């Protein structure tokens, strides 16, 4: 595990998880699952604009929007994720990413450490496959950010 720093909102989420016992961490993950916002209409009606995340065992789709800025690194990033209600664990991770990355710039998103799924204290309760799914989502978000900043 590295000590790379997390952006404020994301660090607060990690702290919340770390402060809880394992059953309560799962309960919090469930709350994130329930709190995952629906896709805005422009994506809900156009699934072809979203990228699938095959690392997840369930159908997960994501798309990243990068705003305008003089220096691409400062451009604001918005992340949209969808995951089925029958897959609450995956939805929970999508919810954490949505909330944790909200309001960050491109360079801040790219600086989020890749080991963040393992900082939530869920390694024992949630199968490694699931945590890899979250890593897959984060990796794809970063790749989309890089592509859009370069474009």
């Amino acid at each position, binding site marked *: 595990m590295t000590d790379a720093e997390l952006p404020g909102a994301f660090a607060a989420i990690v702290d919340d998880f770390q402060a809880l016992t394992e059953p309560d961490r*799962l*309960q919090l*993950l*469930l709350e994130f*699952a329930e709190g995952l916002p629906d896709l805005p209409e422009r994506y809900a009606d156009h699934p072809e604009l979203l990228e699938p995340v*095959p*690392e997840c*065992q*369930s159908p997960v789709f994501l798309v990243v929007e990068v705003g305008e800025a003089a220096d691409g690194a400062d451009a604001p990033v918005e992340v949209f994720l969808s995951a089925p*209600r*029958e*897959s*609450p*664990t*995956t939805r*929970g991770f999508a919810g954490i990413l949505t909330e944790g990355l909200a309001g960050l710039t491109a360079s801040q998103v790219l600086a989020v450490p890749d080991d963040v799924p393992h900082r939530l204290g869920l390694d*024992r*309760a*949630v*199968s490694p496959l*699931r945590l*890899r799914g979250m*890593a*897959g989502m984060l*990796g*794809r978000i*970063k*790749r989309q950010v890089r592509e859009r900043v370069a474009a």
Partner: protein
Amino acid sequence: MGLPADTDPSFADYAHPERLVSTTWLAEHLGQPGLAVVESNEDVLLYSTGHIPGAVHLDWHTDLNDPVTRDYVDGAGFAAALSQRGISRDDTVVIYGDKNNWWAAYALWVFTLFGHEDVRLLDGGRAAWIAEGRELTTEVPTPQPTEYPVVERDDASIRAFKEDVLAFLGGQLVDVRSAPEYSGERTTMPDYPEEGALRGGHIPGAQSVPWARAAQEDGRFRSRAELESIYLQEKGLDPSQPVIAYCRIGERSSHTWFVLRHLLGFDDVKNYDGSWTEWGNAVRVPIATGDQPGEVPQR
């Protein structure tokens, strides 16, 4: 001992129809003494979002696997998990779950390792129950703990290890993974180094039958005639000869184990739970690639 079997005519042709119950049967028997309902999912949170009233939760990862060694829990661990959930040795256990009962079948196979006699699957699993609009609750039962006996796990009858498979080459092997996993084709993912196995492909001589072919669209098992057309006619498997099924870690192949053993009545079916995550990483074991079973090396 045990509840009466479900006499649903759609099960009658199976070799062991008493291993399945329908949603109707379960709804009629819920709450009866001697019945334990167990939900086992791939997704650890799904049970918390709503489950069949009275069902207890058993997680394949935290409850059935040893936390340190790559193995199942031992007799004491299994007894503790079941006692805590109020399950007795002579209970009729009905297991159901998500994804066509994929993990439920895995749990059933582990129950069988410990010789729990009366263990059944809910045909169609969680999805069938929900699709019929049947009752769900978020209320978690607090059963009176039981004293489930400590039973030694029997790994000899239905479990195969790598050495067993090596000695079995040339026998009937069924690979239940997807076609690209079987062929060894790389599914490369950008920004995501492939994990799991150092080599792609399958065990030489293994037939490819992706596990979900045994299920219908609604998650229920296919009819015996349909299953026979896949496993017997198409793949030429002989029910009187031993067979070993495998996948990546032994979960999907538990589903196929159930089909071959209980629905088609194969005499000797083993699940190789080391599966591809062991075989595909092992040194100097033979591997075949492509969409054909391949040459079985001379021993």
